């Protein structure tokens, strides 16, 4: 056990501040973002049955889902002692806040400089992109922790116990999210960089990489075999409908990276890459350069969802920025001005705060469903048959399942769904159609019983009511800002 020193206290304070900030923002809103309701449902199911909901009777009116369930088990575990509404806000916040500690240990290992490591930890706690995950019950709160811990144990593989720890962490990461592959690919780029730089490649690193690669390949192929068969290479894009694809996998632009990562970590990170490549050599920094390169290329080629890619890119740039900070601080300490390192440190933090303040504020905007919509879905739960199928926008699919406890027509989990483009277009048509006969055909196709026109859908489709909802086939059963129509089961002969 190392003794507690000043920087540990600072780190603990930083961790508490970041956790507090996240929790304040999380509890400021009562609900969760739209996608989070899937996590809540999975957690509830695990708590009740001990098993994840792989055969979901409500999603898409009944379907199979495949996913690594560890995160939901973790939530379910805490849910045994804490109510779900609290667990789902506290645990992800804890995960993201603990990234600060991991970043600190990684950067300290790379730079051997406490101040640089503390500044990097500070950056990682307040980088704007991390705050897009508030109230999302994001699986990345655990995945990022495991992935970066794995990278850390990989760096220390020579030391006793770290190989076993790497394997354990990989297994946990595999049971959490597929994004661990990004790190595995980075290992190969890392070896390539070492080879090109005529560095000696550590044989233990190769051994562990080979093992991790085989293990990850094997695990994912077994888990997602059905999805591979069904979607082929489109599996990478998660079978997302074509019209939505551009919002998940966006074009990368320099300005957007600055906005998400902040100008200071970006500039310092890029300088570190230059320095490691052309001036000094640093094995550990090379790993994070590889990781940043892989994240950037995957973002560029749209092989990774935009937000996930930016999360990886930003954390790697923050780690690398510590390397540049160390150079700055070391050079500053060589001057005659004694206070210069402190001035530089304050200046860097100040510039970081000033440049990330606007994106930070803009990021922290409510993404939760309006209370009127929640109220309407509560009405659905109390006043409709249990096997009723509710049509809502795709975004509201999880909400319909979790709050109304009713079947939906579609939700944002598109994997293993046939003809997803057709279904997605049909749903959009059902909100915008004017022709009753076509609407009735589509409603019968998906066996819809009720149509949920939320305030959110009204804004999205720019309408106040359904055009085709005439009294002979539709009954307005709920009208309180959000509207609910009952489909009376007409047929087109």
């Amino acid at each position, binding site marked *: 056990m190392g003794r507690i020193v000043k920087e540990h206290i600072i780190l603990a304070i930083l961790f508490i501040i970041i956790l507090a900030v996240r929790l304040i923002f999380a509890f400021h809103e009562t609900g969760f973002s739209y996608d989070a309701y899937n996590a809540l449902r999975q957690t509830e199911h695990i708590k009740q049955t001990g098993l994840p909901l792989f055969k979901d009777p409500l999603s898409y009116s009944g379907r199979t889902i495949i996913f690594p369930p560890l995160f939901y088990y973790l939530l379910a575990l805490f849910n045994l002692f804490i109510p779900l509404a609290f667990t789902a806000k506290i645990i992800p916040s804890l995960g993201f806040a603990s990234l600060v500690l991991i970043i600190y240990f990684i950067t300290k290992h790379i730079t051997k400089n406490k101040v640089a490591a503390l500044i990097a930890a500070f950056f990682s706690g307040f980088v704007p992109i991390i705050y897009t995950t508030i109230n999302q019950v994001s699986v990345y709160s655990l995945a990022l922790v495991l992935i970066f811990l794995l990278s850390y144990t990989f760096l220390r593989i020579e030391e006793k116990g770290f190989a076993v720890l790497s394997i354990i962490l990989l297994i946990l990461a595999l049971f959490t999210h597929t994004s661990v592959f990004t790190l595995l690919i980075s290992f190969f780029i890392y070896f390539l960089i070492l080879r090109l730089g005529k560095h000696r490649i550590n044989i*233990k690193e190769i051994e562990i990489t080979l093992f991790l690669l*085989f293990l990850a390949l094997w695990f994912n192929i077994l888990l997602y075999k059905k999805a591979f068969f069904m979607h082929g290479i489109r599996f990478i894009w998660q079978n997302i409908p074509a019209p939505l694809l551009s919002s998940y996998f966006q074009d990368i632009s320099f300005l957007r990276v600055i906005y998400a990562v902040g100008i200071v970590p970006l500039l310092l990170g890029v300088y570190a890459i230059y320095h490691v490549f052309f001036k000094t050599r640093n094995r550990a920094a090379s790993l994070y350069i590889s990781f940043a390169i892989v994240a950037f290329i995957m973002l560029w080629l749209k092989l990774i969802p935009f937000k996930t890619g930016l999360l990886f890119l930003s954390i790697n740039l923050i780690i690398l920025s510590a390397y540049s900070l160390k150079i700055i601080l070391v050079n500053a300490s060589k001057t005659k001005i004694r206070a210069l390192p402190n001035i530089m440190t304050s200046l860097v933090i100040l510039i970081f705060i000033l440049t990330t303040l606007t994106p930070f504020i803009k990021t922290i905007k409510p993404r939760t469903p309006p209370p009127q919509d929640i109220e309407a879905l509560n009405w659905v739960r109390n006043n409709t048959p249990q096997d009723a199928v509710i049509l809502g926008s795709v975004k509201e699919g999880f909400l319909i399942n979790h709050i109304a406890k009713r079947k939906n027509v579609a939700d944002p989990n598109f994997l293993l769904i046939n003809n997803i483009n057709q279904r997605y277009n049909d749903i959009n048509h059902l909100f915008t159609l004017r022709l009753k006969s076509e609407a009735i055909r589509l409603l019968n196709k998906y066996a819809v019983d009720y149509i949920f026109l939320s305030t959110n859908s009204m804004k999205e489709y720019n309408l106040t009511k359904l055009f085709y909802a005439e009294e002979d086939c539709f009954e307005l059963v709920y009208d309180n800002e959000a509207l609910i129509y009952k489909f009376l089961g007409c047929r087109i002969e």
Partner: protein
Amino acid sequence: MKNLFKDGGKNTKKGLVFAITLLLLVLSTVMILRFSQAKPLFPAGEAYYNLRIAETLKHNFFLTTDPVQGTLYELNPYHYLLATLLLLLPSPLISVFLPLVLGVISALLFFRLLRLIRVKPSQATASLLVLAVTPAFIAVFTGLYVAGFAILISLLILVIALHKKHPSFPLLTCISLTLLFTILALTSLTSFLLTFLLLLALHTLRGCKRKSLVIWVPFLITSLVIVLLSFFTHYTPILDGFNHFAFQNILSLLQARFGFDIFLVVLFLIGFIIVWLREEEKKPYHLGVLGLFILALFNINARILASFIITVYCVVAITYLYNRKWHLTMIRTGTLLLVLCSLVFSVTNQITLLVNAQPDKEMAKALIFLKHLDKGKVFTIKENGFLVEFYADKSVLLDTNSFRRRNYSELLRDAASLFMTARLREAEPILKKYDLHYILITPEMKEELWENREQGLWFLMKHSESFIKKYEEAGVEIWQYIHNRNTSLSKEV
């Protein structure tokens, strides 16, 4: 056969026997499983065309026209081999044993070839073991495929040309090579060119520069024969087997029948890196193999040939992983276990793919029913074409050989229009243009073409009096189109 064992000791002999037994076991498993499920022996595809043509050749050895399709018949030595065998043995016996025999002979020739290029006996035997779990090998030798025959001739050419003894009988070698080259060129022009290039490379690798005449003379004579045949007969030389790059065609994981297994590709890449670093003087040849692997992404013949060659690299990788002194013994065990699991996965995945492939007994039953209907051309997807010709003895609008026809793109366009139209006035001209009498619909077509919804041609047939349903069982439907019927426009859909 004696030569086969000459280089190795008793262990090699045992190993070889084990490898061949495994190979036979794997190949026969596919047939046994299909048989146990009462499915026709071969998965849908070329095997049915080859068998039908061979049956025809049995009665008419100088065939110029395909008797069912009425198209020009392109001479293929494999069909003649099959026809000759059919004269001696019954068709079911040939169907079961010929692929197995060709598979075993190819494996033995491959072993001999490896020994000739100085691969250690143990490594050559191990290559056969890996070959037994290679998807393309399993697929090719569980059906009557031209590619299987082509690979056998290619290997025979390589073994004869590289045999140490041939300098004593250069004329005999030249004649036999010319004969084999001609057979190969007529079987598959792409395989002919690939074999020649491979032979040239291996010849140089063995340092036999002076004897290259033995290769060049047969090659030039064969080329001349091909040119003369194309000038003076209806033979059209086509570089066969090319397709656009698509992961679905390459990876067996994505249901490619003649694809690579993902784990074998990973092992190949590891093996490639190892030999690349180890064997400085052989780098050009390894580069050639890499070239073949890249070509294999676009060409099926190259893929089958590459599937043989990469086994050597896979063995290098496995041997390396097995023999090297690992720093972490636990990881060694884990990695080797994962490699073993991946090989088992490769073979089970391919066997499942082949066993589940169409036709099943329901399809065969429908096709036999079709046979007993009046004469007439059948319209279905091109993947079903050979099956209809074989079982129902009726011509089809499209089959997998239709690409040879001049109006292929027009055929494809018309077929697509016909499948998608729900209007008789649009369908009728196409039906009449090609004199189509029957339409065969399978459950797969319903799902892929019409998303299991009554639309397009399926809808039209169900609602038009111009079509009569002749057969419907287990989702397979046969409809008859009534030609020259006075259809009133009021009835038109």
